């Protein structure tokens, strides 16, 4: 258990979650699908604005570590907003609503939402 891959004996009695492997519970939010797409995420993003900005900054720092000139982030901020208009409804509008509510540049919110495909690179 103390050499990689640190495979443990099968744990038991871990539920209800507690102790060092449990950082905390997860909050619930309602997403009202009757609202216009651009308004659906506003309440949640207003609550999580700081954490989202911190996450996006970490991705920016990572991109700038690869391309110190900052060109990669510039490219994201110029090109990816165009991508938002090509995304199927309601996703493009929802992403724009998140950018408005959080103050994060639209291109970076788009990047966050297509990260799965991008990350396969």
């Amino acid at each position, binding site marked *: 258990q103390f050499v990689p891959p640190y495979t443990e004996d099968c744990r038991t009695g871990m539920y209800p979650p507690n102790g060092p492997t449990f950082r905390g519970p997860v909050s619930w939010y309602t997403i009202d699908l009757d609202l216009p797409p651009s308004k659906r995420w506003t309440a949640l993003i207003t609550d999580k604005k700081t*954490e*989202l900005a911190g*996450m996006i900054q970490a*991705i920016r720092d990572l991109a700038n570590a690869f391309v110190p000139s900052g060109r990669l982030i510039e490219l994201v901020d110029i090109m990816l907003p165009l991508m938002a208009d090509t995304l199927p409804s309601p996703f493009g509008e929802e992403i724009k609503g998140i950018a408005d509510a959080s103050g994060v540049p639209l291109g970076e919110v788009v990047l966050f*939402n297509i990260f799965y495909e991008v990350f396969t*690179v």
Partner: protein
Amino acid sequence: CTSVVAQDQKGNLIHGRNLDFGLFLGWDVKNKSWIISEKLKPLVVNLDFRKNNKTVFKSTNFAGYVGMLTGIKPHVFTLTMNERFSLDGGYIGILEWIMGQRDGMWMSFLTRSVLENATSYKEAKNQLALTKMLAPAYFILGGNQPGEGCIITRSRELSIDVLDIDVKLDRWYVLETNYDHWKEPFFLDDRRTPAMKCMNKTTQANISVKTLYDVLSTKPMLNKLTTYTTLMQVSEGKLESFIRDCPNPCMPW
């Protein structure tokens, strides 16, 4: 990621998953943690998607991400997706999209649309297996009837394989990490073997939400990339999630 759909002896389906993300995206030497994984943890939220004031589906998300990685259509089906690596990967899908070929779906928008619109396990399974995508993926789907649990291995264009729960073959659970189930996992990242060992040790007689959480709390299924654990019970329409930590010594992935 580690996703499991298990069928107990009464025929109930239980679905659990660890969402691991942030590999190679920056390591914090001081705290022995992945930078992106740590930034994602405060963004984990449970969402109740409602229409006409009724729940359509529920999910565990990262705030700001409109697609779905983990969700439940209460009393109908449960769905998680795990990352699949392939040379014919998402970047090709993105290039096609930029060139104007837009007949494929972005992975997380497909899962969102299935959770929002599919009205049965069978319909969800068809949509996940047959829709052209921009990137490969594993879809792990649980239904609400005995035998309704499967792993759909997807390339961008095709459904490569579907592995169903089959109690007659003593396959009372299906388990997916990030490797095709008919191949050996990468030897430096074998989370499948220890996970199956713990599932088999649990036995079908004792599988429950609690014991599935035990399996997902055992290293290396629990590792430095694990941001959250979600447990779902389709028959009760219940989803619960927990933000995780992995105390040292702990595998980076």
